[in-house]
């Protein structure tokens, strides 16, 4: 305030305000204007009310001194017209009148005047009044400027929020959230949600789901969570495994965000055919797998740092694996929900969650969770964003993705091409071979999107060559109790210890009878297998695991094993297009 009053006195003595003097007597005009100019004002003259109204519109004076009785139009009527024109700025009007009684004063103020001077004018009083009016005017103008600036900020912010909200929503959401097996819920503490749920299918039909929670809330949190969406969708659609996606997201968050910002995330991959759930939890409350009766089957607590906290060497990307053999639901929530529900973010909270939801029918459990949250006050009580996902898994049911990805081909002749790649132990440990091969073939054919069947064929061939060929694993292990987990661990251990051996892949594209075909040859350094016996028994052999020969034969036009069984060539017609990414076996 000191600063403001300082400004007032400085400006009021040498005022740059302009004054409109309205009087029909030339002598009064001259005297007033001379006096006001000496005080530092700029002066305009009008001879009656009508001229005054015109002058106010054209010259926008800061102060008006108005005689009450004038020809053509009097002071009161002129004042009413000036007020009626609704100027956005305050315009003080001081009346001059020959009538000294208080009734005239009241009338003047009621008609829109701000002050009143009695004729004949006392110049001492006029000076004091003008100073007071100027002081008030300066404060008033400052107030007007501030509220105009505030309104402009507000409008700009509203506009920015609208734009940001639109872009964030577009970037964060994706059609595949329509999955019938997936229910989800997010509620923001402000306009923006720092919590984000995303889902997508890999070309082989695995469902990837992500629940991400940017640190803090509001726009900063929403911006923090955003960079994880593109790697999630892009890499899932290309068929990368969770570990590669998590690594990419961690690096991206570290590169993009300030050091104090990070994203807690849970990534879930469900292979409905194999009945295997992979979970990576970094910084979120425990994920629960509960059975139909609400029994807690599995608890996946946060075993990792949130995305963006740790450099690569401190960061673990290995997911934990759970294989289900009864109908169950995977339930993952952000800490905002645990807090809103009044639960601890540790195991005890997860048990309360299972207890709350257990007695209810699986399809209604997400609604129960919402009710519990809202009953306690929801996001307003915790000032944090809230989100939850529920994935329903039923053995033997593997819902195809809600929308089968269309295969778009470049029109016309593709021409002949081929490439070969040799992968030794080091590459087999670090490179995701199948998405790589699929990507190269896709580019050769100018496809905009993935070909699920080709992805399936490449997965089969590479898995056979690596798992059964190079690593010498027997898929019968998977049939034992707890066999799947054992198989996965054995595979990890063998791969980590691998120092020799490798896989050689040759893929060639050519036209046969005007149909684009692929020849895919995969050769490994393993000892092969008795393919003649396997082919002979194929009709009677109905094992759920094996080398997927039956599948390859269904999808490919030719399957030929060579040598000791460590080399295979398949012919694949590129133009077959009856979709069904999830329809086949994946091993």
């Amino acid at each position, binding site marked *: 305030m000191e600063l403001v009053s300082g400004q007032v006195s400085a400006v009021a003595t040498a005022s740059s305000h302009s004054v409109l003097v309205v009087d029909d007597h030339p002598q009064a005009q001259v005297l007033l204007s001379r006096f006001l100019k000496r005080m530092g004002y700029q002066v305009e003259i009008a001879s009656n009310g009508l001229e005054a109204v015109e002058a106010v519109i054209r010259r926008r004076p800061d102060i008006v001194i108005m005689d009450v009785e004038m020809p053509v139009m009097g002071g009161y009527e002129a004042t009413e017209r000036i007020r009626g024109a609704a100027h956005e700025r305050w315009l003080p009007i001081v009346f001059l009148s020959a009538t000294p009684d208080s009734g005239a004063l009241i009338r003047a103020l009621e008609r829109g005047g701000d002050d009143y001077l009695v004729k004949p004018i006392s110049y001492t009083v006029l000076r004091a009044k003008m100073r007071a009016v100027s002081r008030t005017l300066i404060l008033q103008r400052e107030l007007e400027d501030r509220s105009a600036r505030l309104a402009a900020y507000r409008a700009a912010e509203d506009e920015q929020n609208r734009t940001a909200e639109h872009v964030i929503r577009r970037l964060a959401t994706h059609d595949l959230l329509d999955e019938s097996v997936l229910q989800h819920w997010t509620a923001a503490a402000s306009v923006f949600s720092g919590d984000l749920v995303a889902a997508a299918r890999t070309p082989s039909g695995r469902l990837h789901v992500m629940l991400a929670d940017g640190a*803090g809330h509001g726009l900063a949190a929403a911006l923090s969570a955003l960079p994880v969406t593109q790697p999630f969708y892009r890499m899932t659609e290309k068929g990368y495994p969770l570990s590669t996606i998590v690594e990419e997201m961690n690096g991206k968050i570290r590169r993009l965000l300030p050091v104090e910002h990070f994203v807690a995330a849970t990534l879930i991959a469900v292979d409905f055919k194999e009945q295997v759930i992979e979970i990576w939890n970094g910084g979120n409350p425990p994920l629960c797998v509960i059975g139909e009766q609400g029994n807690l089957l599995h608890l996946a607590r946060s075993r990792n*740092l949130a995305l963006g*906290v740790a450099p690569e060497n401190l960061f673990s990307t290995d997911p934990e694996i759970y294989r289900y053999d009864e109908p169950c639901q995977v339930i993952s929530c952000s800490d905002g929900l645990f807090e809103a529900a009044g639960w601890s*973010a540790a195991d005890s909270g997860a048990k309360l969650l299972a207890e709350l939801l257990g007695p209810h029918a699986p399809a209604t459990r997400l609604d129960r969770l919402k009710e519990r949250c809202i009953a306690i006050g929801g996001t307003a009580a915790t000032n*944090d964003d809230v989100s939850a996902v529920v994935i329903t898994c039923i053995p033997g049911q593997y819902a195809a993705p809600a929308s089968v990805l269309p295969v778009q081909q470049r029109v016309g002749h593709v021409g002949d091409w081929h490439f070969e790649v040799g992968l030794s132990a080091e590459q087999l440990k670090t490179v995701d071979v199948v998405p790589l091969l699929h990507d190269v073939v896709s580019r050769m054919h100018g496809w905009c999107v993935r070909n699920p069947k080709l992805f399936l064929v490449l997965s089969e061939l590479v898995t056979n060559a690596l798992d059964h060929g190079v690593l010498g694993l027997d898929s019968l292990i998977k049939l034992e109790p707890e066999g799947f987990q054992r198989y996965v661990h054995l595979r990890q251990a063998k791969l980590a210890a691998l120092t020799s051996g490798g896989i050689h892949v040759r893929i060639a594209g050519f036209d046969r009878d005007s149909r684009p075909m692929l020849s895919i040859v995969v050769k490994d350094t393993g000892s092969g297998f008795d393919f003649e016996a396997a082919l002979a028994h194929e009709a009677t052999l109905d094992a759920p695991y094996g080398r997927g020969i039956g599948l390859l034969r269904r999808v490919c036009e030719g399957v030929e094993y060579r040598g000791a069984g460590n080399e295979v060539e398949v012919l694949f017609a590129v133009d077959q297009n009856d979709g069904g990414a999830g329809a086949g076996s994946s091993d």
Partner: protein
Amino acid sequence: MQAHLITEQTVARIRLTGRFDFSGHREFKDCYEAALNEPAVSQIDVDMEDVEYLDSSALGMLLLLKDHADARALPVSLLNCGGMVKEILDVANFAAMFPMR
């Protein structure tokens, strides 16, 4: 939240009291900047004994402190983490980033 800096010889101890969230950002920052500006300091301890609660932005502030301390090669430890504070730090797996005593 309140933050107090107590420096004893080479150890700077930041004692926090109350709810550790974004509203305590300025106090916490003033405290650790003062600690980092002491040339004699070779170790920073953050005493969490009287912290009632911490949220994700508090975790972010701890990371910010660690980032600045790393630049001066100073170790940062968290002291007396119990109850809810320990639970939240466990979910975040902050033991991988900060020794806890």
